């Protein structure tokens, strides 16, 4: 194997083989999925996110939530995700068809978020949790996302958006903590995370 062409041919063929198998064939076979439309109601799944939630997804990416939180539910045979209540069914390729990129995640230092919008629908809860996770879960190791909030002097009437924070986390008297536009978008995104609809390839369990 002393000839450049022979060597390169070997490099080329071995890699081409894998490239076709793991990139090109998946691209052809499930790179063009269509949403599931109910002909009677006109409902389409997965749901297309609102503009605000889509911006929130960018905040999620900018904030590195993915380094502790996954967004995928494994089938019952592959772990206890479903029994834990992280989702009623496994997630499938179609669930992520609008996600560019999908935020599947590889770490569960924190819980899975595939259905966090369903499990925890309250915006108020999310804002308090993002600002001070330990005010809700004292032993939590989650990073507080303070930079997404603004502490400001109350001028006139308090803001309706102001966070209700318990003792050690509350701002000084006369001040209030309000979410920035980014925080509002992020919470809208978290609320949109809901894969509790049925797809033919991933039906919901029978009640």
């Amino acid at each position, binding site marked *: 194997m002393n000839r*450049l062409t022979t060597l390169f041919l070997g490099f080329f063929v071995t890699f081409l083989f894998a*490239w076709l198998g793991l990139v090109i064939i998946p691209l052809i076979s499930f790179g063009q999925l269509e949403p599931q439309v109910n002909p009677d109601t006109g409902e389409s799944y997965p749901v297309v996110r609102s503009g605000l939630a889509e911006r929130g997804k960018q905040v999620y990416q900018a904030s590195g939530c993915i380094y502790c939180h996954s967004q995928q539910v494994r089938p019952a045979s*592959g772990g*206890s995700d479903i029994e*834990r209540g992280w989702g009623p069914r496994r997630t499938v390729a179609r669930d*992520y068809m609008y996600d560019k*990129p999908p935020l599947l995640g590889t770490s569960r230092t924190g819980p899975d978020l595939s259905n966090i919008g369903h499990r925890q629908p309250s915006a108020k809860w999310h804002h308090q949790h993002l600002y001070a996770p330990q005010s809700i879960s004292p032993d939590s*190791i989650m*990073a507080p996302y303070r930079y997404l909030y603004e502490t400001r002097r109350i001028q006139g009437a308090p803001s309706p958006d102001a966070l209700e924070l318990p003792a050690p986390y509350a701002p000084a008297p006369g001040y209030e903590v309000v979410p920035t536009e980014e925080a509002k978008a992020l919470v809208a995104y978290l609320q949109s995370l809901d894969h509790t609809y049925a797809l033919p390839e991933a039906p919901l369990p029978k009640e």
Partner: protein
Amino acid sequence: MMPGDNDAQERAEIDASCRGPVLLFFASAVFWLLAGTLFGLVSSLKLHNPYFLLKLPFTDIYLGALNFGRVRPAHLNAVAYGWASVVGLGVCIWLMARLCRVRLRYPGVVCAAGVLWNVGVLSGIISILLGHGTSVEWMEFPSYVTFILFVSYAMISVWAVDMFVHRKPGHVYVSQWYLMAALFWFPWLYGTANILINITPVQGAVEGIVNWWFGHNALGLWFTPIGIASAYYFIPKVIGRPVHSYYLSAFGFWSLALFYSWNGGHHLIGGPIPAWVITASVVASIMMIIPVVVTAINHHMTLRGHFEMLKYSPTLRFVVFGAMSYTLASLQGSSMAIRSVNKITHFTHYTIGHSHLGLYAFYTMIMFGAMYYIVPRLTGSEWRSSVLIKIHFWACAYGIITMVVVLSIGGLIQGFMLNDPKIPFYPNIINATKPYLIGRSVSGIMLTVGHLAFAYHFLLMLVGMGRDSGGPTLFNQPQEENS
């Protein structure tokens, strides 16, 4: 004139031609090593102490750039694209010149490429810290940074191929196959992944596969070949005898080429992609046992009868530590691809332990060994202090062993608890992993000590404060041992 003198003179001329670019790559790599270590340590501390360094020091300003979610990807990218890639490129240029027995022509172009690469990495890290990271693991840099890196990479690989084309007639050594292959595969891999994820994004599930095909093969087809090429060069070089078997070398190389490239899908076991993709990668990952065991046997047989040299030669000790870790990391990786094992280890700190066993205990330790060999030949002076090398070796060896052991145990506990739905996630699982997260920070401090000793020592070499005369700096002097 003796033929030996001619050879020595030829080597000296080749080393002189590489001096500027290789030292530039090494110096910037050491900078990124320190930066990456700092990011890693800060992330680790934040994971068991979430209020650590939340504000800009001495102010009341909460800064996004200091948040775990940004420092953590800054760590990965600083060590992968800063330290590991840059030191690897430096080693690659030097090895190619030495093995092709040609002088590096127009070293200024390679220097320019090195500067460009560093500009790319620096802007990438700043982008991540400012919140412009993509959150696609291993590909967090925004696409304009990728473009800068690509141009720089093309310049360097063209130069390496040019050396190969103009090589002196004779045998092509096994290290050259690995280096040429890495230089050929990486742009294809990086290009494909960036086009399909960042430039013209495809649908979610396919992106997930491409992401992990890239993430795994950045290790398998970029760092690993450079690491193995170095092991194949330095082990025989230091002990002064040829590689045990040409046949095993070839078999190990081509089986790696065939199997490693199919890895990646097994990062998504249980994930939302068709089962055949996962199964293909699981099989490929198990098949990796073949090249790994073949390479391990080849290195072991080469070393046989010369193990006492590990007591003296820093290069040999670092490289052999790395080569042994390669075997361990790869076999562990194959085991983690088995579905029943993966069910426990997936999503846990066990995986983080595995990645450090690969990129640190294997790759980084070999790169340290390579630098101990190459730098004196470029600066014309010997390493100043065997004590500093000892501190470097033991702090890093104990540090990385501690990290892998602690994360593996913590990860297994986490994995078993996660699979028992009766155990609540909060607070039980969180509290069960905390002691191991603290243990990881302790190991990070040990690594930091080793890196500081090394960086200081390297700086002394760079500013011309190495030892002028005498033989290479060894851990111990062999003659003292004999007396």
